[in-house]
């Protein structure tokens, strides 16, 4: 084995991969969320539709999209490898255990919160990405150019399929749990732990874990309330 594969397949190496892809995915969440907020502009969905068009056509976005898919794939693949290894490390469990005496629920259930986020992602891609790309959705014309009316799609999906909207909100709570532990944990995995910075990193982690999922949840909640 070359030193690179040896490093990347060691337990610490795999955790390094988890941490780097995890933090990268956090950055993706920020980009995704900030773009989505355009739908709240009182312009009949124009800014959001133009943004959607740009996101699905610009070359640079294509490159970023591939990196993002790789980021997800590697994060998810590594999470399975690690989870399996971790389960095998204790083939016989305890008859009685009190894990909450020494650790947080969030930290012990990263696999659960992650897997639910994964199910959500697949559904989310089907609902919006697939429909936008291949589905039959109405168009609008701004200054002579035709745009797919993504704003309309989002609005109608969230308003009509209320159960889906509620599912979205629930999953955002799980994303919050994932980030509640994940953000700070990634820094620890990277070996970044310091009296001066760690308390700050942990506070930022909690803030991100609350604000980002809340931001995403705002869309289904808003459209549900304006039905």
């Amino acid at each position, binding site marked *: 084995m070359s030193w690179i594969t040896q490093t990347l397949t060691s337990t610490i190496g795999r955790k390094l991969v988890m941490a780097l892809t995890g933090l990268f995915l956090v950055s993706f969440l920020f980009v995704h969320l900030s773009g989505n907020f355009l739908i709240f502009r009182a312009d009949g969905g124009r800014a959001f539709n133009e943004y959607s068009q740009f996101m699905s056509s610009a070359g640079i976005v294509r490159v970023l999209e591939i990196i993002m898919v790789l980021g997800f794939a590697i994060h998810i693949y590594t999470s399975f490898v690690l989870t399996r290894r971790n389960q095998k490390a204790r083939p016989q469990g305890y008859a009685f255990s009190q894990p909450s005496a*020494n650790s947080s629920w969030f930290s012990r259930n990263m696999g659960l919160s992650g897997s639910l986020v994964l199910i959500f992602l697949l559904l989310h891609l089907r609902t919006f990405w697939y429909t936008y790309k291949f589905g039959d959705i109405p168009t609008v014309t701004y200054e002579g150019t035709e745009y797919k009316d993504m704003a309309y799609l989002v609005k109608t999906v969230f308003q009509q399929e209320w159960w889906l909207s509620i599912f979205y909100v629930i999953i955002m709570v799980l994303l919050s749990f994932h980030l509640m532990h994940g953000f700070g944990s990634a820094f620890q995995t990277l070996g970044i732990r310091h009296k001066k910075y760690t308390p700050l990193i942990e506070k930022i982690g909690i803030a991100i874990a609350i604000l980002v999922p809340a931001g995403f949840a705002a869309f289904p909640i808003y459209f549900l309330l304006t039905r």
Partner: protein
Amino acid sequence: MKLTLKIWRQKHANDKGKLVDYNVDINPEMSFLEMLDDLNEKLAERGEEPIAFDHDCREGICGTCNLYINGRPHGPIRTTTCQLHMRHFHEGESIVIEPWRARSFPVVKDLIVDRSAFDRIVQAGGYISVNTGSAPDANEIPIPKQIADEAFNSAACIACGACVAACKNASAMLFVGAQISKFALVPQGKAEKKIRAEKMVAQMDAEGFGACTNTGACSAECPVEISMTNIARLNREYIGAKLTSDNV
């Protein structure tokens, strides 16, 4: 003080094993191990096989005693099993007593596990290989007190294995982190720090311990309070060593 003990009994490594109930009436001033001694005497009188459990110094310094008591390593307070006293339990309580559970710590008999995996990790690099000769003069190598204290805190690890027992992944990162840190912090250990990190982590993985999810359970249960800083340092040392050492 009347208690019901639910104790893991397993005749040998390949036996299936099960929890067996024992009703005892004990003096609350006893230590946990004295209670087991007392029970063992009674079992011996009745011609039954005494319960096998590990212990040595009974002073909280050797790390030999290792029981998973009521769902936590070393029981409800942060100490070694030998330093745990029955006053921390109440009348009529049921106490479940199990061995450490980890693939790398196989059960030998009853509550005794084989922790030689830790020894092999230490053999892989937990030493300084220069001939140190006779003891150097104190203060010959100036080390700031703060750093000396930090290294000493890491060196306080008694290798009891509570970290592995507490971890949901049966990970040995806190133990290995402490071993790496006590050398990496001081000049004597710096010369070999890269090869040490590489070899000890390779051995840790080969032994089958899990990876670290940073839950912090290990440190929270550690009787000598080894901190999570040791794990961060281990991550740093290992990644740094892999990136910069000459070992291809």
